[in-house]
């Protein structure tokens, strides 16, 4: 069974979906991604779906659940490059993917994740300062 490759780039994981998603593929992706986040300690997950033309409620729900699982493991999910038709379909299905960050393309998605990583670094820094002071 084919699987969707997951790439690690710095503190982020990148998934680009280039094939039509079917249900088993989506389930496998959720499993792989969860395992990968746990193994690498990634803080951000970027899912690029500009090649995805067809979504149904199941795929929409998978995206939401991937995001929820990632959040539990302290990684933030960004969905990038959604096509207009897909966005309309998801809204009509009532799946507004609340809690997931979205970006127009990979570049902007990465900068969202980097911004979070940088912010956390600052946050840790100030924490340490606080302890020392």
């Amino acid at each position: 069974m084919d699987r969707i490759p997951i790439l690690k780039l710095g503190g982020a994981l990148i998934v680009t979906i280039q094939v039509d998603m079917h249900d088993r593929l989506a389930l496998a992706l959720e499993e792989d991604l969860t395992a990968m986040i746990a193994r690498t300690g990634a803080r951000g997950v970027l899912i690029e779906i500009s090649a995805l033309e067809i979504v149904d409620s199941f795929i929409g729900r998978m995206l939401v659940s991937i995001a929820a699982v990632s959040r539990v493991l302290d990684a933030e999910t960004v969905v990038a490059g959604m096509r207009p038709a897909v966005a309309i379909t998801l809204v009509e299905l009532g799946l507004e993917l609340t809690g997931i960050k979205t970006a127009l393309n990979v570049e902007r998605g990465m900068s969202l994740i980097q911004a979070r990583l940088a912010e956390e670094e600052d946050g840790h820094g100030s924490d340490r300062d606080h302890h020392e002071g």
Partner: protein
Amino acid sequence: MTMDGTEVLTRTVTEDEATILDGWTGALRESASLQGGRIREAELQTQAKAVLGQFRDALVAGGLDADGESYAPLRETLADISRSRAIQGFTPTDTANFVFSLKEPVFEALRLKSGADASAQAAGMWAGGKVIDRLGLQTMEVFLASREEVIGRQGQEIAELSTPVVRLWDGILALPLIGTLDSARTGVVMENLLQAIVDEEAEIAIIDITGVPTVDTLVAQHLLKTVAAARLMGADCIVSGIRPQIAQTMVHLGVELNVVSKATLADAFAVALRRTGRKVVRQQVPTEGRG
């Protein structure tokens, strides 16, 4: 002598064509068609002549069956005429009268032809009435279809005209909505906006509803859907131009717009500039007492 109505009618129309044409053009001239000045007398005469000629041919070839093969050229001519009248703005009465006014001269010719033979006259009139009525109805059907086509096209043009997406700045789009929002229009609006977001790589879209006369729960729902779809694509939406009365109505109706909203397009634009890391500054402080 017993005669079939079709035969009487066919013979009358064939032999007295010139008289009938005279009578018909006379009737047409008196009717309202000409008085509006929308059509010239010569044109009307040419049309009448062509129609009557084809009517005669069709009668000879196919009898009374106005839906039959032999009437095809006549139906075509009448369809052309009624289409052009629909576009020129004739009233339905004018258009229908063009065909129905043929009855009088035909009946008159039948009366003269039959002389004392009342049954032949009645049969001929019955046949003539039937076939001319059928032709009139066909003409009206084409007339109405053409009118509806015109109306449909106008509706489409209005829909296209009224949903422009404007680029205010790099990455900032504005969508000024004008007129009532229904489901069909919202669909077009949503698609246009989302496509523009992709094309312009926009970060922020401002939906300005200054020109939307009423906002009810349905319109609010449409707006929310559009905002949600834009968010899914990675763009933020700001709703602007909610008029005071509309804001009151919305609150009274319990409609909640859980989106960033600003009173005017200018305010929304300022927010959009700030979010994209830009600022508008006055280049020079105006000095007092100049000029």
